[in-house]
């Protein structure tokens, strides 16, 4: 088995990019950390090294969804108490791109993350996020197209 350090070096950036599209730039560090912490503990018992990227991407999906769920709960709680602060993407990051990513339909965000950023085939993306390979292929390209339009930048071509 490869030393885990090499696994981190090889996949760190792609997993971070996936997490950032899923939960936004602020929570992405938590999502990445929880993903790799879970991975290093499960890694010694892993049966095969065949698809480490897909394995990490699946863990990242679950950890990111956990974070999104807990944020939603927090927001409900904050609303109930009439607290207006939102802890989500807006707080510290002003880059338009992350606000636009956040406003994409969830399936498009997921499809972009797993196909374009993690480099997984559509069939594998479908296995992680549900649906058919064809549908995730469409979601990925529609998502990117949407994002490009919303950013209204002609130079993304």
């Amino acid at each position: 088995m490869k030393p885990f350090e090499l696994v981190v070096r090889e996949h760190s950036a792609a997993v971070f990019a996936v997490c950032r599209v899923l939960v936004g730039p602020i929570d992405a560090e938590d999502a990445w950390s929880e993903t790799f912490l879970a991975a290093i503990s499960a890694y010694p018992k892993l049966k095969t090294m065949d698809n480490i990227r897909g394995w990490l991407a699946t863990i990242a999906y679950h950890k990111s969804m956990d974070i999104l769920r807990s944020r939603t709960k927090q927001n409900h709680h904050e609303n109930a108490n009439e607290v207006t602060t939102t802890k989500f993407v807006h707080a510290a990051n002003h880059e338009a791109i992350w606000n636009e990513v956040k406003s994409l339909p969830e399936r498009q965000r997921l499809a972009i993350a797993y196909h374009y950023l993690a480099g997984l085939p559509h069939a594998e993306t479908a296995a992680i996020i549900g649906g058919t390979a064809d549908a995730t292929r469409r979601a990925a390209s529609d998502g990117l197209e949407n994002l490009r339009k919303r950013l209204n930048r002609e130079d993304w071509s």
Partner: protein
Amino acid sequence: MSDLVDELSVVDEALSSRLHERLVRDASEVGTLSISYRTVDSPIGTLLLATTSAGLVRVAFENEPEDLVLQELSSKLSPAILYNPKGLDEVARELDEYFKGTRRVFEIPLDFGLSRGFRRTVIERMVKVPFGNTRTYSQLAVEAGNPKATRAVGSACATNPIPIVLPCHRILRSDGSLGGYRGGLDAKRFLLALETK
């Protein structure tokens, strides 16, 4: 399209190392980090150091490729290995003092987990040969309880997982010649000279 994907993929160096440090910290805390490693400079070349929670488990010389050393640790001990310089600060400090001539005895805990059977018996005896002293392979065979095993003592020295700290450089041939050394004979000569200053 690819420009947009690039923009979504960018992760800068500072962020990467911050994430890595946090992983090292978190995994140490929950006990899932099995082996930490780093490299240090020394007068006999770059040394790779690896430690488990029990102690220093491996010292590798520059002539041993890093990927092979890490691969060996991964298959023999655990693949839960991370680059963690801070986890080896104490070891690096003692080695530095040794090379400067201000330390004669290492106090860091050791992990003999890479050695089994007779080889382990040999290195357990070897560690008792004091700074500035030498033994012959056959003397060490006697001390390890098997006078006929001179050759096996030789191979235990040649595969010593923690050279320098486990002083296989203090073991010589009966005729006074150097014998072999994992880090090359120049390194062995250097260490013997360092200890006779």
